[in-house]
C-alpha cells in the first residue's frame, strides 16, 4: 500500500527492473529446460524399465496371468499361498540360504586376504590388481560351462579327476552325485573366481584410506607389526567397507542364478535349485506370470529383510 508521501507510480517497478526480472525468468526457464534435457532420459528410463515393471509385477502377483501379461482375474493371496505351500519353492529358499552361508564368509575372507597381499606387494602391484580383477569381466555362463565341462567333468579326463588320478584316486562325480554333494565345491569355486577380484579392489580402496600415521603411532606405542596392527587398526578402520561388501555379497548370493542354471542342468537341477531357477521355470517355462511375480515379491522381501537386519546389526552408515 502506498504511503501518502509516495506516489503509486514510484512503487511500480521501473522499466529496467521489469526487464531485469524478465531476464531472470527467462534464464530460470532455460536452466530448468537444460536440467530436464539431461535428467529426463535417465528418469524416463528409470520409470519405464525400473518402476513400471516393479509396480506391474506387484499387480500381477495378486492376479491370474497365464500366458498373458495382463491380469485375467483377481487371485488375491492365492499365488503367495501356493508358493509358500510348494515344497519345490520352499526347498529352493533353503538352498540359497545354504549357498549364502558358504559363499559370503568365504568371499569376504578371501577378498580381504587377497587385498592385504596385493596392497603390501613391493612391486607390480598394478599387475596383480589387474590379474585378480580380470575374471570379473568374464561371463558367468562361460565360466560355468568351463567349470562343468572341463575342470569338474566327471570323467577321468576332467582336470580335477586327472589330478586325483595322479594320486591313484578314483574319479569323482563332482556335479551329478549328491553323496557327498561335491557340487557345492564347484559352485562356490566358480563364484569365488568370478567375484573375488571386484571385492578385492573395494578392500584395497578401503586399505589405502587408512592413515599411515595410525600404524606409526601404534608402532611407537609398542604394537607389533602383523596381527596386532591388523586386528586393532586395520579391521576397525575397514568397518564400513566390510559392511558394504557383506551387504553386496548377501544380495548377490540371494540372486544367484547363472552358475546354478548352467552347472546343474538337465536332471541335475532337481538336486539343487535356487528360487530364481524355480521362478524361471514357472514364469518362462510354464508362463504363469502371476505365480512368478509372487515369487519375485517374496524374494524381494527376504532380501530387503536380511539387508536391513544386517545394516542394523552391523551399524552400517554409523560414524566411527
Amino acid at each position: 500500500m502506498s504511503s501518502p508521501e509516495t506516489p503509486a507510480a514510484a512503487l511500480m517497478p521501473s522499466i529496467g527492473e521489469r526487464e531485469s526480472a524478465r531476464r531472470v525468468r527467462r534464464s530460470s526457464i532455460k536452466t530448468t529446460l537444460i536440467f530436464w534435457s539431461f535428467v529426463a532420459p535417465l528418469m524416463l528410463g528409470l520409470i519405464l524399465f525400473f518402476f513400471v515393471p516393479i509396480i506391474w509385477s506387484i499387480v500381477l502377483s495378486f492376479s491370474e496371468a497365464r500366458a498373458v501379461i495382463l491380469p485375467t482375474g483377481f487371485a488375491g493371496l492365492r499365488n503367495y499361498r501356493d508358493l509358500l505351500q510348494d515344497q519345490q519353492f520352499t526347498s529352493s529358499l533353503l538352498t540359497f540360504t545354504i549357498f549364502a552361508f558358504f559363499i559370503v564368509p568365504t568371499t569376504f575372507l578371501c577378498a580381504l586376504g587377497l587385498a592385504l597381499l596385493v596392497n603390501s606387494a613391493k612391486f607390480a602391484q598394478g599387475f596383480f590388481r589387474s590379474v585378480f580383477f580380470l575374471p570379473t569381466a568374464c561371463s558367468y555362463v562361460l565360466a560355468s560351462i568351463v567349470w562343468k565341462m572341463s575342470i569338474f567333468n566327471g570323467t577321468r579326463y576332467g582336470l580335477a579327476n586327472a589330478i586325483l588320478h595322479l594320486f591313484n584316486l578314483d574319479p569323482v562325480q563332482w556335479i551329478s552325485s549328491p553323496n557327498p554333494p561335491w557340487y557345492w565345491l564347484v559352485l562356490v569355486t566358480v563364484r569365488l573366481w568370478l567375484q573375488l577380484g571386484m571385492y578385492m579392489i573395494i578392500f584395497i580402496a578401503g586399505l589405502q584410506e587408512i592413515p599411515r600415521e595410525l600404524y606409526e603411532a601404534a608402532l611407537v606405542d609398542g604394537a607389533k607389526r602383523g596381527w596386532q596392527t591388523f586386528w586393532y587398526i586395520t579391521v576397525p578402520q575397514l568397518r564400513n567397507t566390510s559392511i558394504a561388501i557383506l551387504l553386496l555379497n548377501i544380495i548377490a548370493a540371494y540372486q544367484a542364478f547363472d552358475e546354478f542354471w548352467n552347472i546343474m542342468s538337465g536332471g541335475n537341477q532337481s538336486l539343487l535349485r535356487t528360487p530364481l531357477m524355480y521362478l524361471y521355470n514357472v514364469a518362462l517355462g510354464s508362463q504363469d506370470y502371476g505365480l512368478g511375480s509372487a515369487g519375485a515379491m517374496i524374494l524381494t522381501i527376504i532380501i530387503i529383510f536380511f539387508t536391513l537386519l544386517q545394516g542394523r546389526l552391523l551399524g552400517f552408515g554409523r560414524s566411527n
Partner: protein
Amino acid sequence: MAHGSTQSRRHFLRYSASLALSGGLLAACAGTGGGGGSNSDLPALTHWYHQYGEKGTHEAVQRYAKQYTKAKVTVNWVPGTGNEYPDKVRTSLLGSNPPDVFELPNPTVDQVKAGLVVPLDDIISPVLNDFNENALKPLRINGKIYAIKMLNDMSMVYYRKGLFQKAGIEKEPQTIDELISAAKKLSNKDMKGLYIGSDGGIDALLYILGWAAGSEFLTEDNKITFVNERVAGAYEKLRELNASGGLLPDAPVFWWSSEPFKQGMCAMQWCGLWAMPEIQAALGDDFGVFPFPALDAQSKPAVGFGGWAEMISAKSKHIDAAKEYVKWLWIDNTDIQIDWNVGYGFHVPPRKSIAAKTDKLTKGLAAKAVEFLNAYGHSNTPYWDNAMQLALTDAVSNIVKHNADAMSELKKAADKCDKELQKLLS
C-alpha cells in the same frame, strides 16, 4: 579463464543436449522402418526358426522362403540352445509384434486359452490320416489342431556290433534287465557300457521309462495314470542302472551329441536319429540300433515322438497368407519336406506317405528307426505341461539319487500334477 569460451562451451552443451533429446524423440516416433520395396503388394511374413545344429539348414530355410512367391517371407534364425528359443518365442507372443509363423515342439493349453495361436484344421484336415496319431496328439487341444508337424525326431540306443560280439552278447537287449547286464559286461577300465546323459539318464529317459513300463502319464481324457507299481519299478531300474557301474557317468557333451559313442567312451548310447549320418561316417557298419527295451515281457519297448511343429500367431496381420505359406511348406511341398528332413540332418517326414517315399529312410538302420517310431512311438498330450514335467523330474531324481521310495515320490508328483491340471482345465 576467458568468459567468452566458457559461454560458448555452455551454449554448445545446451544445444547439443537439446538436439540429442529431440533426435531421440523423433526416432521413437519414426517407427521401425523396413519393408517396402518392389514387392509391396505381397503380404510380409516373419518366420522364426531355432538354430538347428546341422550344417546347411539356415541356407535351406532362406531358400524355401525365397521360393515362395505369394508372400514376402523374412526368416529369423534365432540362436540359443535348450529352452532359449522356446522362451524367446513365448515372450514375443506376449508383445504386439510376434512372428507370424514360428516353430515350437507343441502349443500349450495356456496359449490357446489366451488366444495367442490360430487353429489349423482347415489346412491339415484333407491329409489328417497321413499323420501318425502320436505325432498329432501333442498338437490337438479341445479337438482342434494348432500346429503342423515339420519333422519327427526320435531317439534310440546305438550300440557297437563288434563290442557286442567280443563280449559274447548275442542279441539286442529285450528288457531293461538285459540292458543293465549288457552295460556291465561291456564296461572295462577304458570304456563304459552305456551313456544316457550326465544326470544319470533322468532327462533322457524321464518319459521313456514310463512308456516302457506300459503306462501313460496323462490320458487324453485328462486322467493322471503314472502312479503304479510298474512305473515305480521302471524308475527303480534306472537307479539300479546308475549303481551298476555300467554307466558312463559324465561326458563333456549332453546325451543328444553322439561324440561319446563315436570316440569310444561308451559301447552304447541313447541318442537321436539325427546323429545317424555322423555315426555312420565315423564307424561305418560297426553299429546297430534298438529301441529302449521294455520293462519286462508284459510291455513293449519305447521311443518318443519328438520334433518341431509350425504354428501361426493369432496377432499376425496376415493370418490367411501365413496359413497358405505353412500349407505350401509342410502339407503340399513334398520336395521341401524330404529335403528338410534328410538333406542336412536325419529326421522322419511327419506325413507317412512322404516318409515312405524318402529313399534314405527306406533301407538299412534308418528304415529300422522308422519302424521303431511307428510301432513304439509315444507322446504326451498338451495338457502335460512344464510344471508337471518339473514335478516328475524331481520325483525321479529323488528315486534315483536319494534312494527314495518310488511309489511315494510318484504320489507326491501326481498331487502336484493334479493341482496344475485343475488350473489348466478351469
